[in-house]
């Protein structure tokens, strides 16, 4: 097990290093920081001086090491468009994105798993077929259209819910949260549903497929033969094993949620990192793009690691030492 964890850590390290390298290349070859800092009428001497001051005349590995060192301290320089520190910009936007993603993940799990179990147990009934058809639509509809349709229905036609921004927020030690105000919750509903639809449909279909698979296995037949009530068979025995792959997919989808949040945030003008990133892409704001890339990669790597470790906690078969060379 220790060897496994060490190998995963090494892999994570390599991934982070390559992402950092891509971010570094962005800085190196996209745009000229000296030109953008000095303006057009700088003398060649000034340019050379600034190059030396910024360390741009040093050899490539030294510059890369410096970049990684700065990145580790969260220093990605100044945003080209807003002239503020990138780290401050991102710190400001991070809570909004995380709260939105967490809310969407909770919706997807709390609604998706029971519906998936239901669709598997009541296979062939009208209700379960409705659930499957709707979930097919949920997987194939683009996120931004779902958001627009929800706005049209609930904000424009019925006027029940707001469709713009985060509403009132409370700041707790620099972390702005919308969870503590009624207005914040109201603003959260539509974006969170929009973001959760795809994951919800995915989890529903996955749980259903896994559950059907598990219900065919021998140990379920034995459980029935022992005379256990349906309830105990379904929820005590079958569901537990169904959830193993669900954990993996959910974990991996948590990263996807943060990426999909870009779209949701654009539709609802939600002031999160995604909106910041899309503006950075539009204006070719390299420092913001690089910082976002590194942060998202870090979140991905951490989530993947946690998922791998959870596997050990959930599935005892993996804890048995395997012969060397096996995966």
């Amino acid at each position, binding site marked *: 097990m220790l060897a496994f964890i060490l190998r995963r850590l090494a892999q994570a390290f390599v*991934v982070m290093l390559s992402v950092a390298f891509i971010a570094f290349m962005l800085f190196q070859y996209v745009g000229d920081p000296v030109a953008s800092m000095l303006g057009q009428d700088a003398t060649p001497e000034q340019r050379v001086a600034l190059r030396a001051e910024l360390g741009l005349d040093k050899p490539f590995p030294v510059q890369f090491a410096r970049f990684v060192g700065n990145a580790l301290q969260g220093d990605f320089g100044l945003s080209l468009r807003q002239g503020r520190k990138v780290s401050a910009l991102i710190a400001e936007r991070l809570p909004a994105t995380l709260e939105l993603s967490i809310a969407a993940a909770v919706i997807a799990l709390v609604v998706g798993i029971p519906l998936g179990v239901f669709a598997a147990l009541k296979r062939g009934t009208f209700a379960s077929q409705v659930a499957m058809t709707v979930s097919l639509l949920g997987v194939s509809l*683009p996120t931004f259209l779902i958001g627009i349709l929800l706005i*049209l229905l609930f904000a*424009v036609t019925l006027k029940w819910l707001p469709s713009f921004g985060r509403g009132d927020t409370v700041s707790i030690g620099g972390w702005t949260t919308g969870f503590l105000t009624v207005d914040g919750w109201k603003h959260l509903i539509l974006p969170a549903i929009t973001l959760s639809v795809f994951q919800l449909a995915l989890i529903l279909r996955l749980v259903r497929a896994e559950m059907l698979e598990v219900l065919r296995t021998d140990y379920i037949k034995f459980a029935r033969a022992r005379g256990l009530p349906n309830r105990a068979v379904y929820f005590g025995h079958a569901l537990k094993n169904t959830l193993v792959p669900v954990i993996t997919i959910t974990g991996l989808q948590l990263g996807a949620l943060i990426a999909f949040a*870009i779209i949701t945030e654009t539709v609802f003008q939600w002031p999160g990192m995604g909106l910041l990133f899309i503006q*950075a892409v539009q204006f070719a704001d390299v420092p913001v793009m690089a910082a976002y890339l590194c942060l*998202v990669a870090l979140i991905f790597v951490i989530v993947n690691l946690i998922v791998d470790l959870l596997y050990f906690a959930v599935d005892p078969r993996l804890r048995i030492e395997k012969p060397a060379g096996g995966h």
Partner: protein
Amino acid sequence: MNTIVSKAPGALARFFDGDVWHSFKSSPMAIAAALIAAACVFCAVFANWVAPHNPFDLAAVNLSDSRLPPAWEEGGSRTYLLGTDDQGRDILSAIMYGARISLFVGVASVLVSMVVGVGLGLLSGFAGGKVDALIMRVCDVMLSFPSLLVALLIDGVGRAIFPNAHDTLAFGVLIIAISLTGWVQYARTVRGSTLVERNREYVQAARVIGVKPSRIMFKHVLPNVMGPVLVLATIHVAAAILTEATLSFLGVGVPPTSPSLGTLIRIGNDFLFSGEWWITIFPGAMLILIALSVNLLGDWLRDALNPRLR
């Protein structure tokens, strides 16, 4: 490349001979999906002749006709069946022209990722060793990030490198951004089938009589691994069209002078609150229609080509 083109009709003829065609005829879902997809493609390709107006002809567009509702709503006009947008362009015509751009970008991206993916997959499966390991590691890293994020990043870099990009260049950057996220699946699929085919007797026989490896790869192995690739490509077209629409909706897709369906939805989104829902909803409906029908076709094709399900 020539070998692929010259080989394709033979392979295609075999596909649609017998079983597959029979399965198509007996599946109402597939027929309906094919008809809808064909209608969408027809309207898109022949937009010049089918569309009632030319939305890009500034002389024909009349600003006093702007924001007209669809014909059946109060205040609507017969001339503009689905209403007009803020600049007085006919929505129906804009959708047809927009679908053409969406389809073009979608199909072009699929073709590029197919060529890249199939090529790298063949190489990976055929060469093995370090080349294989390197290509597969790159695939792993690509797969661990959502494709949208990768496409956005490539698009952003493209914008940064060519800040005053010409329109055609913007199209190129977009197509490359979408196709660079899509090739991985082709590469993995083709590599898998190549590993199987590589040890077949016909390949060994070709080797024994001294056929060059590159010739074995393209002339003998390639035609035999193309089946799953075609299924993948069908489903991928829908995904590529949706990715294009998403990027255009986010404002980093096709140039605004040639609006795709995603751009139209983005434009309409600004008018949602003043009650002009048709500017957004109709392009959105067209997008769903295309994506859903192509997806259903792909699903059917997968089942039809899978001998285990027959």
